[in-house]
């Protein structure tokens, strides 16, 4: 089965530093997503991306966050100035087409971000 790949699996950073989390979605997929899960809490939607622009974002996704698809394969999440409360597991996901019953969302295995 195809996979969504996320790197690194663990990232430790100092508060106030910028981090970039990287994802390689499945190659023929068109819709890309970032989710996060703070320890002990729900998995939360952050942002969706289609056709090189953000299609939806949650209240969590403020000006400190940005996403980019710099080339044909990578999809990145940047946090400009990390805060302690940004510590979480970040999941990337992709889907081929929406509105199709035979499509499903594929998730990566996550990047555990620890802000010290």
């Amino acid at each position, binding site marked *: 089965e195809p996979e*969504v790949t*996320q790197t690194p699996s663990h990232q430790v950073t100092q508060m106030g530093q910028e981090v970039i989390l990287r994802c390689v979605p499945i190659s023929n997929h068109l*819709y890309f*997503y970032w*989710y996060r899960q703070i320890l002990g*809490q*729900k*998995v*939360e*939607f952050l942002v*969706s991306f*289609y056709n090189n622009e953000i*299609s*939806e974002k949650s209240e969590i996704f403020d000006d400190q966050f940005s996403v980019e698809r710099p080339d044909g394969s990578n999809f990145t999440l940047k946090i400009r100035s990390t805060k302690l409360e940004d510590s979480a597991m970040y*999941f990337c*996901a*992709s*889907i081929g087409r*929406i*509105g199709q*019953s035979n*499509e*499903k*969302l*594929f*998730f*990566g*295995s*996550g990047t555990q971000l620890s802000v010290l």
Partner: protein
Amino acid sequence: AQSVTQLDSQVPVFEEAPVELRCNYSSSVSVYLFWYVQYPNQGLQLLLKYLSGSTLVKGINGFEAEFNKSQTSFHLRKPSVHISDTAEYFCAVSDPWGSQGNLIFGKGTKLSVKP
């Protein structure tokens, strides 16, 4: 606004016993419903989904779920669990006109299967 409630944070069961993981949702509009599984150190994997049609949905690994609109529930069941089913299970909803990627998740239920 939509929300998902998974009442049980942990469910311990013995191998070969049946299991039901409960999920209730709240929404003022129709929804799509999903169950995902997360094995240790892995990403979320789709078990099954309900979009429309038959309210009994069969998924991978012998799991099934039944959509009950009147009770706003989508409970996950398996008649006989294996040790390998030990994982965390997440119920999720999305609205039917957006993508299937903007999901609202429950807090998850940790299923622990004991020999």
